[in-house]
């Protein structure tokens, strides 16, 4: 029992789950921060990618450390990658259309829907 618990905590040599989760959290909040503050739609899109990727990494890591030998988390991360690809394609299409329409990809030019 004791041994098993120890095994679970140290799966990759010298790296615990907390370190990796800290890393993905930092990545997530960088993405959130970028999403809030970037003035360019492309940069916002990149920030969204960061958020998604941090989530995907979380899935993989938690699957690896908590339920070794199962595949649920891995499959979800693959889903997220597929969704992210689709989302990127969609967002880029919107951005390109917007550019055609108003010759700009700046967020401050998109404030028409207000009070």
């Amino acid at each position, binding site marked *: 029992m004791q041994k098993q618990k120890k095994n679970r905590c140290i799966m990759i040599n010298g790296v615990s789950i907390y370190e990796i989760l800290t890393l993905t959290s930092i990545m997530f909040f960088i993405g*959130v921060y970028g*999403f*809030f*503050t970037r003035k360019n739609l492309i940069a*916002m899109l990149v920030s969204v990618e960061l958020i998604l990727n941090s989530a995907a990494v979380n899935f993989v890591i938690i699957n690896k450390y908590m339920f070794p030998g199962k595949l649920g988390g891995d499959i979800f991360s693959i889903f997220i990658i597929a969704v992210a690809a689709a989302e990127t394609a969609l967002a880029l299409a919107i951005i390109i259309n917007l550019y055609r329409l108003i010759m700009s990809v700046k*967020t*401050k030019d*998109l*404030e*028409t*829907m*207000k*009070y």
Partner: protein
Amino acid sequence: MILIPLIPLAVFLLLGIFFRRIKEPVSGYIGVAGLTIVSLISFYIAISYFLDFGLVNGEYQKIIVFRSTWIHFTDNLKIEMGILLDPLSAVMLIVVPLISWMVHIYSLGYMKGEGGFTRFYAFLSLFTFSMLGLVLSVNIFQIYIFWELVGVSSYSLIGFYYKKKSAVLAAKKAFIVTRFADLGFLIGLLILSYFAGTFDFLTLTNLDFIQTLNGQAVTFMGLSVITWALILIFMGGAGKSAMFPLHIWLPDAMEGPTPVSALIHAATMVVAGVFLVARLFPMFYFIEDGIALEVVAYVGAFTTLFAAVIALTQYDIKRVLAFSTMSQIGYMMLALGVSGYGEHEGLGYMASMFHLFTHAMFKALLFLGAGAIIHAVHSNFMQDMGGLRKHLPVTHITFLVAALAISGIPPFAGFFSKDEILAAAFEHNKLIWFTGFIVAGMTAFYMFRLYFRIFWWNDPEYKHKPHEAPKTMTVPLMILAFMAAFSGFIPFSDFVSTDYSPFHTHIEWGLAGASVGIGVLGILLAVLFYKKENDLSDRFARAFGIFYKWTFNKFYIDELYFFITKKIIFKNISAPFAWFDRHIVDGTMNGIGNSTVWISEKIKGLQSGRVQDYAMYFVSGATVISMILWFLLNN
């Protein structure tokens, strides 16, 4: 049976909805056709009720033909709609459709070429529907509903010439005055039903039930609450029936088209008050030994005298008839007031209904005749008339019949009913009898003043030669003249009585002779004054001086009302209320609105249109909530 009120309703809806499509004569034919069917059904039912199935073991049955729950609040409190057939409603089933039918036919001629022909017929049908619903009601709440409906149709028909200012004012006045009276009716109805626990007529007029009510009622200012409720209900009836002091609307209501005056303001709607008191008669009689009934008697007696005095001096022929109507309804009320209960004691009740019946006939006839005269002369005032007997022979004869009938000259209808009323009053109360007796003479005088002034007097030069009215107008006149002449021979006491069993009346020759005598005296005076053009009446008027002036101005009651409403109520009560409304109530509401605007000005910056801002609010909100949840769950 249920078709009786529903056909006029259907006609009203048809004409009302398609009033632009249906052209002038067609709508009249539709209306007349509908009313013909209704009248035939009603006459058939009423007559077979009286002669065939109504009388079982010497007593008329109260038959509920149809009843359904309209609004169901609780098992005790529910409002039903239905049709009640008893002698009272059967009599009304003859009166209302007959007069309405005649008026429908007459209007084909009278209203020809007037604007709004279809609208006129639509409202006539609405009125007929409401009146039939009223007289067939099974409970007091249903009566109240139809009561208001007749008020509305009366309002829209008085204001039929809505481009004329006086007509609009008259319509408004009629509506407000009767509505004010109906407030009393509503309060009385609520009090009554609160203490009685039912709206139903069959229960309310049950004698045992009334005795239990008598025993348990709360008292207020020395009288039982039920008596107060009845007096308030009578107030509603007095408003509709133009009893003093709520009579002021009726003379002005003559602004409406003359057929309307004949139908609504002479024959049917204005007797609704009498009908209501008669409906609740056992209550009026038995609750606290009939204190409420005394009120009815004295109000009726006063009104009959008051209106007759005013009628002596008026020049507008329709107004003379209007005051005469008030006076005759006063007669009916006083007859109810002096009535007792049971076989012969209930003579006044029977006489009242009888007079209602005959009065409807001859007063509708008088009004329709007046309509034919106005149609021919294009004026309402007797100064513009005279010598019309040569020009309008049919109108002349029918008008004479009606005038004889209302004056109580045998063998015309009015003699019989008036004699019964005076006989009943004589047994009960000499003062009331004397009032009625004097009024009988005055009635004869002013009716023949009208008659001679229109048809004899002198031979003025008419700009347009007056011509007899078309057939559509004279035929109803003839039918009504027939009724006015002979309906007195109906043995009414075999049909209507307080305790629903027939009894026999006989003419009291002494009293009848006296009243005929005073009627003849009135007529002779009228002959003296008005047969040939002379200045006797003017000299007489001058001799009376101030009294004549007061009477001519209807005792300044209208002015008194104006004074009370404008100077006292509007100034001292309504004006502060208006101030309160404008400044406090509206101020509060405006304050709420203004502060909302102010706050939203301040915070509208939040709605920036930047998706990033929204996302940030969302995430920070989510964060705060999750921190709170975390904090709560950890404790």
